[in-house]
């Protein structure tokens, strides 16, 4: 064979651009995929298309004014962002929160976890070609959004949990309607299991694909259901209980490799399914024993923390969110950094998708459950 012929059959690397306008990237994420034929050799995620200068804005706003901005970071789990920010500021101010407020916060946080996981599961199914579960998931999520609307008037961006309290007390029939929803939703999880979890096409697409080993997961700072799928029971609600999570009885589901190996896409999906059951467990306990009290009593008249720094952590639906706040003794923070879980979860993406086919890249990205609002801030 002559040299010229050899150069003709030489496998050449091809660079493929996916996004930023692509339904499978779950937002405005651009992936620069280096491929060898159909096999992926390297992925370079390029982000920043949704950058809204969150941290810069925070340096010009008072602590109370930042709350609505945190909503817009993770728009699928706004309650978690409100709650995590409120906890960070309360730590900085060293104030005590009434017990009723803590119960209300945990109820909305767990409802939000179910809502966020429903979108994650539905969209993940959609990514691998299952359309029906997505419509079911959004139908059920709608009921949670109705509950939130009853609570604070907003369906997506709540501005509900403030440093020191919550904006509105529970609506008169909120507990009744939430119980009704739980009675409806608990059997629904079994239906999801029937249509998706054991579905042979779904299992073929997701099992043994994109395995995150525990070492790689911890090294890249992967947290939340994505890390628990690798068999590590790392959950801040259990490890470092904030708020009043130590008063509740619940388990931390971890991936066991039931359909393939531990840490594959199916395990990450399965952990989210089981986590919804655990959230229902917490909700049933919390709804039964809400104490009475005033939800506005601890809201400080003026938020002006003394000089100092704080790093506060919180378990959102996507993982471990951290707020690093440097206070200079003014009513505006000197520096506020948000460690966003989806940002760190996405950083492992190139590592785990090496050697997989193009179609698997979509599966792996879907299983990581990213929200671009939080990555780009």
């Amino acid at each position, binding site marked *: 064979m002559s040299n010229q012929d050899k150069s003709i059959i030489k496998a050449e690397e091809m660079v493929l651009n996916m996004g930023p306008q692509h339904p499978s990237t779950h937002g405005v994420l651009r992936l620069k995929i280096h491929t060898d034929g159909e096999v992926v050799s390297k992925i370079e995620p390029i982000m920043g298309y949704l*950058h809204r200068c969150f941290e*810069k804005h925070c340096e010009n706003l008072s602590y109370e004014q930042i709350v609505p901005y945190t909503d817009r970071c993770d728009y699928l789990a706004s309650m978690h962002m409100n709650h995590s920010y409120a906890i960070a500021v309360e730590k900085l101010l060293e104030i005590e929160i009434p017990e009723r407020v803590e119960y209300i916060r945990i109820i909305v946080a767990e409802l939000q976890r179910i809502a966020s996981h429903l979108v994650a599961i539905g969209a993940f199914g959609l990514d691998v070609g299952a359309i029906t579960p997505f419509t079911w998931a959004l139908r059920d999520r709608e009921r949670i959004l109705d509950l939130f609307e009853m609570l604070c008037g907003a369906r997506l961006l709540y501005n509900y949990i403030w440093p020191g309290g919550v904006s509105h007390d529970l609506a008169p029939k909120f507990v009744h309607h939430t119980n009704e929803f739980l009675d409806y939703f608990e059997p629904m999880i079994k239906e999801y299991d029937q249509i998706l979890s054991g579905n042979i096409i779904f299992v073929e697409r997701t099992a043994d694909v994109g395995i995150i080993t525990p070492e790689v997961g911890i090294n890249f700072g992967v947290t939340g259901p994505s890390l628990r799928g690798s068999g590590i029971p790392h959950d801040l609600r259990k490890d470092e209980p904030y708020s009043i999570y130590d008063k509740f009885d619940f388990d931390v589901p971890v991936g066991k490799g039931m359909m393939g190996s531990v840490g594959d896409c199916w395990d990450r999906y399965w952990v989210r399914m089981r986590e919804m059951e655990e959230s229902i467990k917490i909700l049933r306990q919390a709804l039964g024993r809400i104490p009475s009290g005033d939800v506005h009593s601890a809201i400080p008249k003026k938020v002006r923390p003394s000089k100092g720094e704080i790093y506060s952590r919180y378990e959102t639906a996507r993982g471990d969110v951290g707020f690093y706040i440097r206070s200079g003794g003014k009513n505006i923070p000197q520096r506020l950094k948000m460690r966003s879980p989806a940002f760190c979860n996405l*950083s*492992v993406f190139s590592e785990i998708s090496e050697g997989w086919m193009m179609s698997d890249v979509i599966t792996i990205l879907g299983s990581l459950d990213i929200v671009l609002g939080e990555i780009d801030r």
Partner: protein
Amino acid sequence: MDNTKLDINQIFEIIKVDFSELIDFTEGDNFILVSHTKWYEIAKFIKNDSRLLFDYLMCITSYDKEDKITYGLAFNFKSTINHSYLEIRIEVCDEDSVPSVTDLWGSANWHERGAFDMMGIKFENHPNFKRILLPDDWPGYPLRKDFETPEYYRGMLVPKDKTYWE
């Protein structure tokens, strides 16, 4: 392997044995100040020493010291084995560069790029050192306190702070 949770004083005593003149700690503080010159060696030590084992780098925050010369980095570590927590800070001048720890903790890669993007802190030996969120040709580093928003970016008007707010 020792599985006891350590507090900041004990951690300081352990690191001090090998790196006494490079680290600084004031009683009552919750962080250890580290010189940037030997940061890679210290990082390697806190990751691999059997008493410390800080295998999880949670966050890197860059901050401005507001004296127009020094900029800081805060590293938040957690050990998933003995559950100790550690905050390390490095403070550097504009012309200094900090050794990258990307090959020790994969999560450092994007966080270091973020620190460069927003605060202009330079890192040595980083595998892919460029901006992460902002466009590559954005002028200046926006989270520095003396940053002035440019009037135009590629011919587009950049709205000034609070101009259109009311």
